[in-house]
């Protein structure tokens, strides 16, 4: 492509645009896998028996309501695959837990998969994942 001033500007704008958003260093897929491996000891994870509820589009990444339910689990960990640190929260259910479920509100740095890993009473693991779009608002204020 001929490097006219118009082209150079367009290229520059594109490169510029990529650096404009003050994105933090995001978690790599490796970091997320490592965090999961630390939980499971590398064991395989089943699907099913765990429900993760998260909005399809989060109106603001600062406060995203989520809930998770895994009947029979001893603990559930939530991870955000593209946050600077993938670990978000761990719920450990005691003998007087009425259900192995919990709701909370989390921070998501950008559009990503939210992952829930439940450790079951027999030591096995199950996982669920939910894609959440995190939008950039129009007007701050």
């Amino acid at each position, binding site marked *: 492509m001929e490097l006219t001033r118009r082209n150079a500007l367009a290229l520059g704008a594109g490169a510029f645009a990529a650096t404009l958003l003050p994105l*933090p260093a995001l978690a790599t897929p490796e970091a997320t896998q490592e965090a999961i491996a630390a939980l499971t000891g590398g064991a395989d994870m089943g699907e099913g028996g765990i429900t993760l509820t998260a909005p399809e589009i989060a109106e603001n990444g600062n406060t995203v309501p989520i809930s998770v339910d895994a009947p029979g689990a001893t603990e559930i960990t939530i991870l955000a695959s593209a946050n600077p640190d993938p670990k978000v*929260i761990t719920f450990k259910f005691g003998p007087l*837990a*009425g259900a192995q479920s919990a709701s909370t509100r989390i921070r998501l740095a950008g559009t990503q998969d939210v992952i829930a890993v439940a450790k079951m009473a027999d030591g096995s693991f199950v996982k669920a994942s939910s894609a959440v779009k995190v939008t950039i608002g129009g007007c701050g204020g």
Partner: protein
Amino acid sequence: MASGVKPRVKVPKTAAAGDVITIKTLISHKMESGRRKDKKGELIPREIINRFTCEFNGQSVLEVILEPAVSTNPYFEFQAKVPESGEFKFTWYDDDGSVYDTSKSIKVS
């Protein structure tokens, strides 16, 4: 101790023995993640609630390990079994060593 930290819990006043009830908890806490920068460009140190426990008459209902990705003013909703009358004790642990707690009684008919 972080300032302006106030816990708030919602527990039904009564229940039948063996009921499962819904509990909601909130605590006003900034949850400073440690990744924000101040006006000078320096990192604001992390200061979050890192742990929450709920016990009933001394037995564990729920324990939560929190990371900086939990939103400001941490909120939890969860279920508890109520075998008998007694007291729910809620405790939040701050990075800076502070401990905040509150309790709520429940009467079983």
